[in-house]
């Protein structure tokens, strides 16, 4: 039955559509094909959600080879919530981004752009679904290589440098990850995650396992923009084409966090996480990111770069909660992973609309846009409020869970820092809103008009999700809570 094949369909759909896009000519056909593909993929994700909610974890053996010999795809609540954010944002970004792509990508490159976008989607989806560590590496490289090219497609020539920087550091990160996998394989003779979880138990005290752990954490840390190895991220996000920024900011670091969660809690387990003091280190790095990145964001002139730094800070929240390694902590981490994807997707997409109409995305380019692009800027403002954590938005729900997680470990100081960082968020979000609504656009510049309808639909899909999940958070919180149970319950 088709419903039994959903896991593989999720990966195959974009994978097969990508080369098709590459051989098509013009703009309209590849666009239509990729929009169709992402919408279909989103449907598949919803199908997976329904199945996981009704029957629990799905295990899918590729080609009928049973795990651990064959490659296994596993879908549980955690995979589903991450898939939802990836596919949801991909759909919103492609549906809404048409006009922005026309403006920022040359016609001859458009089919390749779509092909790469779909490949990237394939990579991210595969990383979430696979239960095999080496297969994960392959998907990681599929998504990374396509990301480098996508970033390099940016209109600014500095995008090339950003892509190059990202390539070098990204490759080092991925190679670190492979070293870790190799060491693990050496000790256990398996690459299947579930299998590994059992076999690591006997040998977890050995230096080899510890070394593997260290290599993997650093490797993944690079990919998720952990504070000391984050420096590729602001450049990449700021200089990539607007649509790409929107997609990457909302998804790629999230998937890296997902891998981190899986590796740490499912394979190595909480006791090792605590014994190696990694818990404290990650909490520390998270707090560092919350404060330093937020402060840096305040002083940025390019709004895209500002949002990129804000992303680093938000990743700090996710890392901190993850580092607590408690049930409320992991719940908050997963929840914020989802919610932050919604916020940043909306903000970057609105910014893509600004880039489309106003030409650039410096602070001054926002002047007076509140009147000129009322719907876009209203969306931007609401998503910004969500970032601050105003009630009625997903940001508030996230903040609440993060605080409860902090108090659960008697972390009054940490709770205060979290809120302090929210105040910093006001400092970098509010001036933008103020410019949009209370300044007049420089009369010497050409007048701007509202973003095209598809773009508004894309923006408001994401903004709507911000509000919807802010008022009825049950779906996200439920999934996050059960994910935490699965992750920590499976741990020894």
């Amino acid at each position, binding site marked *: 039955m088709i419903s039994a094949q959903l896991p593989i369909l999720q990966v195959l759909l974009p994978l097969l559509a990508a080369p098709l896009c590459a051989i098509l000519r013009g703009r309209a056909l590849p666009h239509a094909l990729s929009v169709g593909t992402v919408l279909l993929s989103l449907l598949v994700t919803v199908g997976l959600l329904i199945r996981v909610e009704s029957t629990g974890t799905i295990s899918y053996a590729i080609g009928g080879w049973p795990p651990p010999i064959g490659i296994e795809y596993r879908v549980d609540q955690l995979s589903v919530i991450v898939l939802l954010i990836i596919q949801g944002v991909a759909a919103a970004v492609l549906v809404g981004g048409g006009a922005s792509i026309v403006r920022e990508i040359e016609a001859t490159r458009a089919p390749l752009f779509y092909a790469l976008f779909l490949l990237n989607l394939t990579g991210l989806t595969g990383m979430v679904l696979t239960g095999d560590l080496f297969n994960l590496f392959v998907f990681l490289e599929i998504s990374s290589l396509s990301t480098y090219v996508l970033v390099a497609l940016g209109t600014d020539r500095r995008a090339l440098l950003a892509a190059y920087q990202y390539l070098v550091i990204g490759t080092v990160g991925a190679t670190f990850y492979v070293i870790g996998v190799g060491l693990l394989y050496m000790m256990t003779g398996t690459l299947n995650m579930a299998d590994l979880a059992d076999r690591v138990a006997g040998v977890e005290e050995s230096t080899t396992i510890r070394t593997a752990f260290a290599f993997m954490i650093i490797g993944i840390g690079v990919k998720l923009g952990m504070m000391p190895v984050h420096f590729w991220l602001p450049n990449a996000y700021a200089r990539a084409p607007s649509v790409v920024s929107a997609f990457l900011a909302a998804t790629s670091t999230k998937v890296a966090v997902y891998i981190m969660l899986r590796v740490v809690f499912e394979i190595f387990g909480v006791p090792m996480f605590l014994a190696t003091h990694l818990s404290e280190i990650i909490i520390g790095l998270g707090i560092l990111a919350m404060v330093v990145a937020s402060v840096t964001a305040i002083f940025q002139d390019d709004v895209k770069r500002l949002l990129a730094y804000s992303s680093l800070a938000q990743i700090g929240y996710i890392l901190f909660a993850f580092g607590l390694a408690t049930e409320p902590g992991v719940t908050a981490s997963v929840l914020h992973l989802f919610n932050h994807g919604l916020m940043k997707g909306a903000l970057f997409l609105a910014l893509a609309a600004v880039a489309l109409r106003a030409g650039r995305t410096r602070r001054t380019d926002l002047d007076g846009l509140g009147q000129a692009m009322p719907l876009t800027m209203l969306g931007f403002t609401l998503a910004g*409020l969500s970032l*601050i*954590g*105003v*009630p*009625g938005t997903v940001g508030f*729900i996230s*903040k*609440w*869970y993060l*605080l*409860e997680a902090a*108090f*659960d470990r008697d972390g*009054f100081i940490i*709770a*205060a820092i979290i*809120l*302090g960082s*929210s*105040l910093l968020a*006001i400092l970098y979000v*509010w001036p933008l809103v*103020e410019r949009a*609504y*209370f300044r007049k656009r420089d009369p010497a510049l050409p007048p701007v008009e509202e973003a095209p309808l598809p773009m508004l639909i894309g923006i408001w899909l994401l903004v709507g999700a911000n509000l919807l999940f802010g*008022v*009825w*958070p*049950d779906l996200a*919180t439920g999934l996050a809570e059960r994910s935490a149970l699965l992750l920590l319950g499976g741990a020894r």
Partner: protein
Amino acid sequence: MASADILLAAFCMPFVTAVLVALTGRWAALRDTLSVLGALTTFGLVIALATEWEDKILIGRLLAEFLPGLSLKFMLEPLGLLFALIASGLWVFAALFAIGYLRGNKEHDQTRFTVLFSIAIGATLGIAFAGNLLTLFVFYEVLTLSTFPLVTHSGSEKAMRAGRVYLGILMGTSIGFLFLAMAWTYALSGTLDFIKGGILSEEAGPGLTLVLFLLYMFGIGKAALMPFHRWLPAAMVAPTPVSALLHAVAVVKAGVFTVIKVIVYIFGWERLAGVPGTEIIVYVAGFTIGTASVIALRQNNLKARLAYSTISQLSYIVMAAALLTPLALLGAALHLAAHAVSKITLFFAAGSIYTAAHKTEIDELDGIGRRMPWTMTAFGIASLSMIGLPPTAGFVSKWAILGGAFTAQSWFAIGVLVLSTLLNAAYFLPIVHRAFFRPLSAEAKAHPHGEAPLLIVVALTGTALLTLALFFLPGEVEELAAGLVTSR
């Protein structure tokens, strides 16, 4: 209609009004009629609620739970009813006043103004009806956000700066302290419901309780406790109807209302009385009363003087609540009502003077009482109430607070009350004196003007009469206020 339905209807009415006003923005007369009708309907519904209500608590559950035992919900209790009555009742007057003011001064964007004004009132009712701290917090933030564009209404650079201060302090304290305290309380107690006697679990020792108490008191920035008071004078750049209803009644009263709510329903005042160190807030409030009064004395701008007077009067309420005795809490609740009706009258008068004579400074007011007798008489009555002299509402509440201070044996509080009464007299009476007993200046003679437009005069006369009425007929209000401390 069941009382739960009336409550929901009363809560929704301002938002309905906002929508209707937005839709009919093109036809000014229709729009303004609708806004007044909306205010009247809301007030009517709240009154209906008051008559239906017999010490029974209604609970409406809105939306889903997002943490165990935590959802948005409404619950009516005496203080909330009192606050709702004040806010919705004065909205009727403010709506009338606003029409006169906006037309008289030919303000721009009148529709946007009226829409946001209605939303702010809706948020205020949400605060009044809140069944738990979370609901209260949500509407507290809605109130901040909806009043921000009203503060920056003029769009000038000065208004922008003021708006930044306004938003910065209110959002900063609420997110930095209030939210923190709230999340902490939930982490400790597993609930945020308002329950008489408090919800804080016994685990929280005196030290922790004190920390939480301070976080709450400073986190409720709308109560304008020093040093978080600067937003209120800043907000005075807003058009006068905003200053009158929002920054003398809705917003600031939401602040002190939250203070009382937290003391009575989150901590439980009996419990707090046993915690050493809570008197810090009495001292801070006392300091705020004194300092704000002295600053008020030095202001020449009428609205600025009123703003500082508001800061000091708010601290009366905070101080009374922090004395933690039944009589003082009663006084706090009474003063909430008394200050509301008096201060709105004073602001109406300031707006009236601005509309008719285009004067904003106090030293320009010589002899104006003869040209604007209604306005200045109302101003005089309200001034007496501010000072706390009979026959006005201020006397009743101040008397109760003083009584509370005596029961609490707080000589500091008594001293502050006496001193501030003198200061109040020192900064209000000269204005009245100028208006009635000084001759008109030569410059004023050259620019003849009469009384303000009829709608404005009606509004300020009405609120002045209310100030008197609360002295002669305080029964209902006292009963509601007493419900706060007696029935368990």
